[in-house]
Each structure stands twice: as structure tokens, then as C-alpha cells.
């Protein structure tokens, strides 16, 4: 019997960054150039696949021998030869490099709908997508279904906008269909900009055709003949793969005139954003496509009535579109049952921060935060204590340990003072200062404010200044109240979502971690020992062995002492970089 061998090398952004291209090249070289037996080389091929989510273990490589999949982690080009010789040729996996149970646990607890093909198919090859059933849904929608029928399925599926606000997708499409116009647009919002979020990027890079297929179905449902995918230029790989996908679709007549041989036409273009966070806001995004400065405008009309160039426009997020083909194929009920009563389906999160398994996870809505962080994420790194989880990026909030059993859906997260958002999930441990975390997010929003409306432009800056003051030990009585006042006013008066939610990280940390703010202001102390101006480093004489490691790494030359006798830190010179703290093997340095 000849063995059928497929080698899949992860070439998402993480995979490429970790050397995926070299690994793949090495495998291909081994296959073609090594003096192998001809039977193997003719039945063995290596391919690139998109992100499978577990980026911290990249480069991940699957070796599939006759449908038996073995996954390796942290593969470097120089490891390829051994895998090839031992596993591919001789059939014995290299045990010490296997990804192991951790990898399987990470995936087993997930429900993959959007990501079902990510990491499995070659994103640069349309046939690879077609082989797993791709474009069947679009074909069905275009050839067999009436627009109303599609709209009804989407409505019944309970799919809600995955960009963050959670507007029911079916309702949006229904309005889009109802408005009559000579020109209508479908736009895919791929301007993912939250710090720590990479869900949309992974989908666009790992399974670009699913997004395009979703858009085709939307176009048919809303009777629109042209569309745009708005991708930020900072995602060159996504742009490249989407472009390839569009070209392949044109060749197959899945896009263009009379698609699938029907009388329906759909033209799709990519528009690259210049990297302004605010362009993820629908009205700003449309202005940007129009060639204007990306600034939100007040909504006198819904986009479905007047959007791009004042024409009816249905705009959805990447993930929303990627869900659509599966809903069409598997039915509304199947999808609805995956989620909660009010929100159907699954949601992809980028799990990052102080969690053991960082990466991309897809879970059914209604799962608890605890399950995501502990069961999938493997708990907190280094055995530390969990402190909070930040969801929803700069527009979201921090949820504390006591609310870990909160269900993940739009309403529950909002009740907890945060938002679902686009899917960023940053886990914070006991060593995280919450004031500093709030400051980090506010630094981001105030810099990304478009500057149009007063509260967001000036208000966020003023909040940031207060936070800077607090974290540098200059906080004053009344600062907490001022922050709350500012935050509430900015929320109430801002023009767009960016401003309205800008204060969330501050308001939610004030709600759950007020004592940390008080410690900073009143005691001039940072409980997590993070805020540099509030901490001191001291060497505990009894523990110091006089090894000199700390002295060697100190960039400020602030450590004095002779070998084998206790060292001392000159507080005047110390710049509080923490290098000595990290370098000390005897835990002799005290950071308070």
C-alpha cells in the first residue's frame, strides 16, 4: 500500500514570523530533492495553511499520514530533516517535538464554525476551499434562493454583528433589501484595529474565500451589485490573499458578471485603509472609501438607507460574513442552537495577555469566561493569580475575578461593565496594575480620536493627563470623581462609538478596582508594583549572595558592592527599569 502523506505548515502571520516559509521550503526541498523512494515523493506534498489559532506554538506543522494527523510545535528549518527521515519515511513520529495534549486541549474545547477551515486549507488556492465544500452556499444562494429567503435564514439564525455592537444581521439585510436604489453596496469591514485583536486578520489570511462567499450571499440577499472589502494596509498578507482570492473567483466566474451562470452580477474590490483606528467606524470607513478624511458623521440615516456615496449600503464585519456560508448550508436552526437565546452561533476571540495558551479561539456564545481562560487558555501563566480580563479592546472594560462565571454574550458582558467588542480578550494577572492598564487603553483612544468632536478630542486627553498624574504619584483628592465625571460626560456627548466607549476601561476599573486608584493617590503606592514612579527596588541583605548578576545588568550603574558580599542599590541613580529584579536568581531584590 502506498501511503498518502500531507504536510501542512502554518503560514498565518504568526507562522510566517516564526519562519514558516523556510520550514515549508525545507519540506518541499526534502520531498523533491532528497533521494527518496519514488513512491513516497509522488504521494507526499507539503502545503501552506492559515492560522490555526495557537500562535504561541508556531511554527506548527501537521504531518498527516493516511488521515492520521500528528502536530509538531516550535519547528525550525533545521528540525525538518529529522521529522522527514523519521516520521515521513520511517513512520515514527519525533516524540519530543510533538505539540502534545496541550495543543489538543486547546482545540477540543472549541467549536469551530468560522475557523473550521482556517489552518486546514491552503488559503491561496481556491480549489482547496472548494474541496471542503466552499462556494456551495453561494451557488445555492445565487441560483436557487430568493433574496427574502436568504434574509429569513439569516434572521432566524440569530446571527448578530461580530464587529462589536451586535446588531442583528438579518434585520440589517432586510432593510438593505427593502430600500430601492439603482446602486447598492456591500462592504466588509476588515479594519481591525483594537490592540491585541487579530481575529479578522486570521480569517482573511487563513480563509479569505469564506469572507468573499459570505459577501456574495449578502449581495444576492440585498440585491447589490458591488462591494468593497476595507482592509487596513498594515495587513499586507490579508490584502495579498484576498486579492488572490478575488482573482481566482473572477476566473471561476464566482465574481463579476452573471456569476455562477445566473443573471446576477457582483463586483468586488479591495480598499486599503491607511491605518486610522476610527475608520473601523462605519461612517468614517465609508468617507475613507469616498476618498475623504475618515471622520464619523452623525447618523441621520442608517447606512442601509444612505451609506457609501449616499447609496444604500450593508456593512458587516469579516467574521459576520465568514459565518454566512455555513448558516446557508447547515440551516438557521443549527446555528441558532450553537449560541444563547438572544445571540446565535460562535464568536472568535484573540486570547492574549498572561494566559498560558495565547491564540485564536472560537467558542459558542454563552460559554463562561472561566471556561475560555482556564479550560482553553490553560489558566494563568506561571501559576499566578488571575486578576481581571479585559474584553472588547479600548472600547471595553475589565471584568474582575468574582465575575469569571459571566456568560460570554452581548448582554451579559455589557452588564458586567464591558462589551463583547470585536473579540479582543486580554487576561491580566496579579502583577498587572489596573490604573496603568486603563492608562494604556486611553493612550490608545485619545491618540486615535479623529479630533472632530470636542468631548472625545479634548476629554480623553484630559482623562489621560489625570491618569498620568495618578500613576506618577501626583494624584490629587478628587481625581477619581473628576475621572468619573469626565468619563460619564464623554460617554453621553461624543459623536461616535469611539468616543462614547473611550472611557470604558477607566470606568470599569474604577468600578471594580477602585482601591488601586486610592492606593496610588492617597498612599502613593502601586499595589501591583508596576508604576515606576511609585516603586523602589531594594536588595535584601540576608538573601544577597553577592554574585554580581544585578550589577552587571544595571544600565544606570546604580548597584554597588564587592563580590560575595551583599550589594546595595543607590536610589538616586536607580531608573527603576527592573533589570536587576529579573536577573537575581536568589529573589534578593524587593520591589515595592
Amino acid at each position: 500500500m502506498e501511503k498518502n502523506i500531507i504536510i501542512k505548515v502554518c503560514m498565518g502571520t504568526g507562522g510566517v514570523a516564526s519562519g514558516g516559509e523556510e520550514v515549508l521550503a525545507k519540506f518541499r526541498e526534502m520531498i523533491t530533492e532528497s533521494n527518496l523512494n519514488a513512491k513516497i515523493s509522488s504521494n507526499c506534498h507539503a502545503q501552506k495553511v492559515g492560522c490555526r489559532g495557537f500562535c504561541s506554538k508556531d511554527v506548527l506543522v501537521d504531518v498527516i499520514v493516511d488521515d492520521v494527523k500528528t502536530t509538531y510545535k516550535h519547528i525550525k528549518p533545521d528540525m525538518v530533516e529529522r521529522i522527514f527521515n523519521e516520521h515521513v519515511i520511517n513512520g515514527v513520529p519525533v516524540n519530543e517535538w510533538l505539540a502534545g495534549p496541550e495543543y489538543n486541549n486547546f482545540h477540543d474545547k472549541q467549536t469551530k464554525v468560522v475557523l473550521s477551515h482556517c489552518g486546514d486549507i491552503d488559503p491561496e488556492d481556491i480549489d482547496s476551499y472548494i474541496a471542503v465544500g466552499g462556494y456551495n452556499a453561494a451557488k445555492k444562494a445565487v441560483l436557487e434562493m430568493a433574496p427574502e429567503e436568504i434574509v429569513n435564514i439569516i434572521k432566524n439564525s440569530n446571527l448578530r454583528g461580530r464587529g462589536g455592537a451586535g446588531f442583528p444581521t438579518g434585520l440589517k439585510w432586510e432593510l438593505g433589501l427593502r430600500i430601492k436604489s439603482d446602486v447598492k453596496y456591500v462592504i466588509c469591514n476588515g479594519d481591525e484595529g483594537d490592540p491585541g485583536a487579530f481575529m479578522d486578520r486570521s480569517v482573511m489570511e487563513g480563509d479569505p474565500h469564506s469572507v468573499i462567499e459570505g459577501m456574495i450571499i449578502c449581495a444576492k440577499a440585498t440585491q447589490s451589485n458591488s462591494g468593497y472589502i476595507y482592509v487596513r494596509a498594515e495587513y499586507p498578507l490579508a490584502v495579498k490573499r484576498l486579492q488572490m482570492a478575488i482573482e481566482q473567483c473572477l476566473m471561476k466566474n464566482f465574481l463579476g458578471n452573471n456569476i455562477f451562470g445566473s443573471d446576477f452580477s457582483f463586483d468586488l474590490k479591495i480598499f486599503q485603509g491607511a491605518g486610522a483606528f476610527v475608520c473601523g467606524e462605519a461612517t468614517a470607513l465609508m468617507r475613507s472609501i469616498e476618498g475623504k478624511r475618515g471622520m464619523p458623521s452623525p447618523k441621520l440615516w442608517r447606512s442601509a438607507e444612505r451609506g457609501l456615496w449616499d447609496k444604500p449600503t450593508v456593512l458587516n464585519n469579516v467574521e459576520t460574513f465568514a459565518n454566512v456560508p455555513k448558516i446557508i448550508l447547515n440551516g438557521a436552526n443549527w446555528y441558532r442552537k450553537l449560541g444563547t437565546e438572544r445571540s446565535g452561533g460562535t464568536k472568535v476571540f484573540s486570547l492574549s495577555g498572561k494566559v498560558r495558551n495565547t491564540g485564536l479561539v472560537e467558542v459558542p456564545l454563552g460559554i463562561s469566561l472561566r471556561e475560555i481562560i482556564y479550560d482553553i487558555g490553560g489558566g494563568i501563566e506561571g501559576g499566578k493569580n488571575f486578576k481581571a480580563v479585559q474584553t472588547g479592546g479600548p472600547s471595553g472594560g475589565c471584568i474582575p475575578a468574582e465575575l469569571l462565571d459571566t456568560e460570554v454574550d452581548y448582554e451579559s458582558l455589557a452588564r458586567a461593565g464591558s462589551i463583547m467588542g470585536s473579540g479582543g480578550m486580554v487576561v491580566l494577572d496579579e502583577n498587572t496594575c489596573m490604573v496603568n492598564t486603563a492608562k494604556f487603553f486611553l493612550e490608545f483612544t485619545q491618540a486615535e480620536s479623529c479630533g472632530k468632536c470636542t468631548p472625545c478630542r479634548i476629554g480623553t486627553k484630559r482623562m489621560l493627563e489625570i491618569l498620568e498624574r495618578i500613576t506618577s504619584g501626583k494624584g490629587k483628592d478628587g481625581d477619581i470623581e473628576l475621572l468619573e465625571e469626565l468619563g460619564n460626560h464623554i460617554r453621553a456627548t461624543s459623536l461616535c462609538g469611539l468616543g462614547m466607549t473611550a472611557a470604558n476601561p477607566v470606568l470599569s476599573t474604577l468600578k471594580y478596582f477602585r482601591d488601586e486608584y486610592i492606593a496610588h493617590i492617597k498612599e502613593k503606592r502601586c499595589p501591583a508594583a508596576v508604576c515606576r514612579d511609585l516603586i523602589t527596588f531594594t536588595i535584601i541583605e540576608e538573601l544577597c549572595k553577592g554574585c554580581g548578576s544585578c550589577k552587571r545588568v544595571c544600565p544606570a550603574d546604580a548597584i554597588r558592592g564587592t563580590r560575595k558580599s551583599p550589594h546595595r542599590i543607590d536610589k538616586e541613580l536607580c531608573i527603576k527599569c527592573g533589570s536587576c529584579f529579573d536577573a537575581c536568581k536568589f529573589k534578593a531584590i524587593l520591589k515595592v
Partner: protein
Amino acid sequence: MEEVVKINIDGKEVEVPAGINLIDAAEIAGIHIPNLCYMKGMKGVGACRLCLVEVEGLKAPVIACNTKVRDNMIVKTKTERVQEVRKFVIDLLLSMHPLDCMTCTKSGICNLQKYAYEFELKESSFTRKKFGYPVDAANPFIKRDPDYCILCGRCVRVCKEQGTNVLDFMGRGIESKVVTANDRPLQESECTFCGSCVDACPVNALLEADRWRKGREWEYEKYNSVCMLCGCACEIKVSVREGDIQKINSGAKDGSVEKYLCAYGRFGFDSLRAESRLSTPLKRVNGELKETTWEDAINIVSTKLKEAGKNTCIISSASITNEDAITLKRFATEVLKTQNIGSTISLYSDPKVFKNSGKADINSSDLIIVIGLNLSQWDRVLPAIDAAVRKRVNRGAKLIVINEAETGLSTVASINLRGNEIESIKAIITALKQSGAEIDKQTEEYLSDVREITEEITKSAGMILNAKSPLILVSPELFNAASNLALIKGDIIAVYPESNARGVALMGIETESKSYAEMTDSKYSLLYIAGNVPLQNRPDTDFLIVQNSYMNDIAKNADIVLPVAEYLETSGTIIDYAGRIKHLNRAIDSHGKSKSHREIFREIAKKMGTTLKMPVESEIKKAADVKAKISAMPFEKTKNLHFEPDKFIETLNLTVINNSRLIWLKEAFEVKAEK
């Protein structure tokens, strides 16, 4: 009938037109909703967040500038909640503001100051910051000081709406800034220094460059008047302090597309105090012009006029008031009994055109057809009309440009019909006829050999049929041909270079025997030139009287020079291109010993033994009230009109340009053109 809705604002029941926004509706109810970024006539952008109001039935406050009235709406504009957030917004703005109201030129008219006062904010409750941005003061017209800017975007929007497109935002967040392309000084951009941004700025970020210590708003006497420098005849508001003009702003109604004033009209007033301004009568003694008294001058003039009698020839400018024109007409017919009286009008138009030119408000037209006009803000060819057309287009009107070659307006037109204008008009009329429009029989007769009906022509005809109130703006030479189109639908207005051509023509100064060109070329024993005419060399005449405000080339060649008050020193009326009577109000005293045209004519007449009747309002109204009669006309250009509007307007304004800071502008543009 306009549709109205009933709303309740702060307990007041009012009926307002349907479709207007809450700020305008509240204004009708006599309630002011605070705002910094709203501009009447333009879409609300919701940037300042000051106009938040509560509407019954809605959870959160809404911005009034962008909320339309609905029937039975109950609006509260002064609830505790909205007052609190308004105060918050002002507080934030103050935290980025210099707060130097005690020396700020804008004090007294600054909206930020007004609201800070209203909300009892002596200073910001937040840390105050200042960027210390450099001031752009490299030109003599407009000073830009970004440190005062509150980012309301009004300047950006007016500049964009009128199509000048010089200003925009740059940067993000707190570092957002209003800039020209690449943040270069204004003169390195496409700026025309019209100063619309200055009129729009609610604070001290954009201001007339020379205003420092020239008084503040409450120190000025204000006069509404009219700019007489070109055929736009823009309404102006003149600010006067201690007998001198300190600034001129656009005087048009807020929200009107005619709210515009070009650099000439706004900044040209320094020429009033220029050295070349004539302050006393001059007479030629031994070949040189010497100062003399009015008594002497009038003696000489009346003697000379008596001698010349019917052989006197008078040429008048069309930039004089109706009152001056009517007096001149009387002077010629009653005193001199000469028929040799003409004006500069015949250079660019058949005076009959003004009897038939219509009346219309460009603000209410939904389709504008511009025929044979090279309007341009940049070349200052009727710049206010150019701006008004562009604004109408930005507010939703359609534009058809019919012109021999491409013009500036072509870029914003819905349809451009290039090539021979007459042929295009004929083709459109034919297309209208094919679509079933009723065509005048006479027109049909004139309509022969029509060229091919292109798709664009059909589209143009469709636009005309669909429009509610089309407006045709046409050059005088094409007026007759275009009349045929207006006969089918729409208003027609002739547009021309001099401010009161229509008034001067209607007051009876029109060529009865010879044209301007013929008069200046023939030999008369006495030539009397009243006002500013584009003549440089002395025509062949025994005696030349020049009655002008400046010592220009023709005045230098005169035998007698009589100094005339400028338009800012005169009262009176004019009739603008759209047929509206506009009032001039004397803002300052006449320069030196200069007098108005009509005073001079009356004094001469008196010396010659006739007391001329003073012009009265009713006779001007009567003369102006012509029933425009549009009739079918042959498709021909009016012959013998040779003039280039840009050169003509520049020549007319040469004295103003050369004797004011406008000379800087001219030089800067010449330098730019060389590059």
C-alpha cells in the same frame, strides 16, 4: 404651499416649515440653542456637541443641528442634563484656549467667550494646555492662529462648499489642526484670500491680518452697503471707527449662498486713503494740473459746457448709483440737451438686455445653467457668482455648463456642453421639443439645421424638464439666443462685469446714437467722463473733463479733474444682476473735498441756470420695475461686443488694486504664475 409641522419647544408651540432642523426651528420660536459648529444653510456635522437637546420619547439627548423637526415633537433645550453637558463641553474647550479675552481682538463677538459667560466658567476646571503653534501671518489679509482654534470646522466647510478647497483637517485627536495642504502658509496654497473663513470663524483663530488694536466689535459703527467693484454687487457690512473703515464683512443673509465677498471687496478699502485719491478739483495751467477750488472748477466747466452745448459728449461708468445715473440723465437732457450720452455698458452688452433680464433668487434654483461665462474666484471674474453656483451645487442643485471651452465650473457641473454655445442651446431646445415640451412658433422658425442630439443633450433636456425652478445665467452677448430656452422653462439672468449696469441702463443712460467705442473714437469739442472707465489715452477732444475718485491715466490727461466720492462714501441704490434693488449706506465721509456724482451735476446745472430735481425713491422704483418680456430671438450672438471679462474687471479695479494691500496679492500671484 409650504408644508408646516407643529412642534413644542420649551413649552412654546410653534409652526415651522417641515424638514428644517431643530436649531433653525428654535430660532423661529425665539429660542437660541447654543452651538459652535453649526452653519445656517449647511448640513449639521455634530462636531461641537453643544446643541444637544432632549426630545420627548428619546432616551438620550440628540444634536439639534442634525435632527429634523417632526410633527408634534416636544423638545426641551434647557434641561439640567443638557445644560450640564454644554458646560462640560465649554469647559473642555477652555482647557485648550489662551483665555486672553482682555486683549483678544475677537472679544465681544467670540462665541466661546459668550458661552463661557453664559455658563459661568471663569476658567477651565481642567489643566490648561497650549500648543504654541506658529501663527500664519505671512500675508496682509488673513491671520491664522491655530492656538485659538476650537476645531469647529466652520472654515473648512465654507472653504470646501464654495469650491476653494484650501483648508482641511490634519492629524488625529488632540493634535488635529486646520491646515492648508502640507501646512504651508496661505499664499502657497490655492487661497484666493476671499476671507470667507474669517467670517465663519467663531473665535480668534482666523482674523483680518490688520485688526490688532483697530478696535473691537462694540466700538464699531456698522453700515450695510454694497460692494461696487464688479457685477456681483455683493452686500457688505462695513465697520467704522473714528471715521475710518476698519473692516468689511460679507453682508448677505446667513445661510444664503451669496454670503461671500472676494479679496477686492473685503480688503480693497485701504485705497480710499491712498495718495492717488483725488481730494480737490484740478485744472490744467500751463500744461500742468494744479489744485483749484470747486467754485473755480465749476465756473470753468459750466462755461465750457455752454460753449459746447449739443456737441458735448458724456461717457459714464456703469459703477455709479441709480441716483447718480438718473441725475446725469436729467443733466444731459434738461441742461445740455445732448444726445451724446453713453456708458461702458455698450462694451459688453446691448442695453436692451437689461429690460428683459429676469429676477430670481439663486438660493431657490434647483438647476443652474451657465452659458458663455468664465466665472472664476481665482481670476476674480464675478467670483461671488462662481462661489454661489458651487455652493448651490454642493447643496444639491444640478449644474449644466454651456461654454465654448472648458471653464472652472466644468469640474463641478453635472453636464458640460462644450463647443459653440448657440448650437448647444439649439440642440437642447430641439431635444425638449422631442420630449414634448411646448416650443414657441417663432423659436421653431429660428431653429434650423440643428446638429446631432447627443446623449448629453438629451440628458440636459431631461434635467430641465425635471427641475422645479431652473435658472439660466448667461453672458449678455448670448442673452437673446438663450431667451428661447427660458421661454420654455426657467428664469434667465444676464451677468455682466459692472456693478450697476442694469440700474444705469434702466435709469435711461443708454446709447441713443453711438456706442462707447464710437464716442471715444470720434472727435467732440468736449468730452465729459463720469466715473471709472477703461480708457488710458486721451481721445481726440478740445476739452476733457474727468470726474473720478483716483488720479488714473485718463485723469492725468484731463483739462479739468473733479474729485468724486467712492461708493463707501455715498448713499444710494443699485439694481444688481438678479434685478434686486440694493441700498448703499454712506459709511464714511467723502475724502477731502470730493463730492458725489449727483452733487457735482446739480452744482454745474445750477451754475448753468437750471435747478435739477433731486432723485426720489419712487421714480427709481418705477424705472426699475420693468416687466421683463422674454420673446423668441434669432440664434445669434450680439455683434460688436469685444471684451475679455477678466481684463475688463482688472482694468476697472486697477486703481483699487494698485493703491491697497491688494497689490501684494497681484504680485504674489505673478510670482506663483512664473513658477
